């Protein structure tokens, strides 16, 4: 969730110099795949640009498609990844951040 008044660049920012939102999962473990489905961004105009920017604001969800690996052991597991994002408000921008993301699963 992005706080009111802030936005993060979408995965397909409008300008080359902007840092995109990106979610990547580490390889290995009981799950394979990991293609990310990003939501549709909104185009918003800010004081610091002539063109609208492609951004995510408020609540949004990323969907990730995994398959169970053929050799996945039965039982619980955790798939770990990294989410990189860079946020701004209407006047200023904040350093890009990378946070760890984890998905718990159980193979039966």
């Amino acid at each position, binding site marked *: 969730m992005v706080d009111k008044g802030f936005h993060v660049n979408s995965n397909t920012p409008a300008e080359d*110099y902007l840092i995109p939102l990106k979610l990547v999962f580490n390889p290995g473990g009981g799950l394979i795949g990991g293609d990310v489905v990003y939501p549709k961004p909104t185009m918003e105009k800010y004081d610091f640009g002539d063109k609208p920017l492609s951004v995510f604001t408020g609540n949004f969800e990323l969907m990730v498609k995994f398959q169970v690996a053929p050799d996945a052991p039965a039982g619980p597991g955790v798939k770990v990844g990294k989410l990189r994002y860079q946020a701004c408000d209407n*006047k200023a*921008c*904040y350093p*890009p951040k990378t946070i760890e993301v984890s998905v718990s699963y159980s193979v039966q």
Partner: protein
Amino acid sequence: MPASRFPVWIAAAAVAAGCLFTGCSSETVRAASVKPDKERKEAPDFALKDADGKLVHLSDYRGKVLLLDFWATWCGPCKVEIPWFMDMQRKNKDRGFDVLGVSMDDEGWEVVKPFLSDLQVNYRVVIGNDTTAQLYGGVDALPTTFLIDRGGKIAAVHVGLASKKDFEDGIEQLLQAPSGGITRAALPALLGPALPGAR
């Protein structure tokens, strides 16, 4: 000597001394964002490398009015301000003004050099680090820009995109300020002893 000449002589000396102390021009600029002298704190010194690998100290700029800009290549508001700063550099470099950019790009010169080349930035840029940012209060938001007076004190801070006029007025006010050496304590010596008929 006629008594009427005394008040004129004293008035002229007072105006001259006043101009030396406060700075006189046909148009005195006062920027809302510029702090009074007594409220300004010393700008922390630092040593960072420029694009040629030379070490740049903030103290190298003592005696000049300096615009110190923390920015990054991924920062949209920074890209709006940089051309303004280039313009201000062009117009004021012969008046004792300079701009120093501090890039906060983690990727360093690999991304900063092409950016500077594309925009033909006409002032010095160094690569910053967390230590320097902490000296200046953390610099969480970009751009964060400091106006530093000739004495090396922080006269104004702008966090986020500011107006071009705010910068221009602040720079002009600091450029018009006296460069030092004349103080209130020196005024009596400049004015001379009290003369008969003087108030």
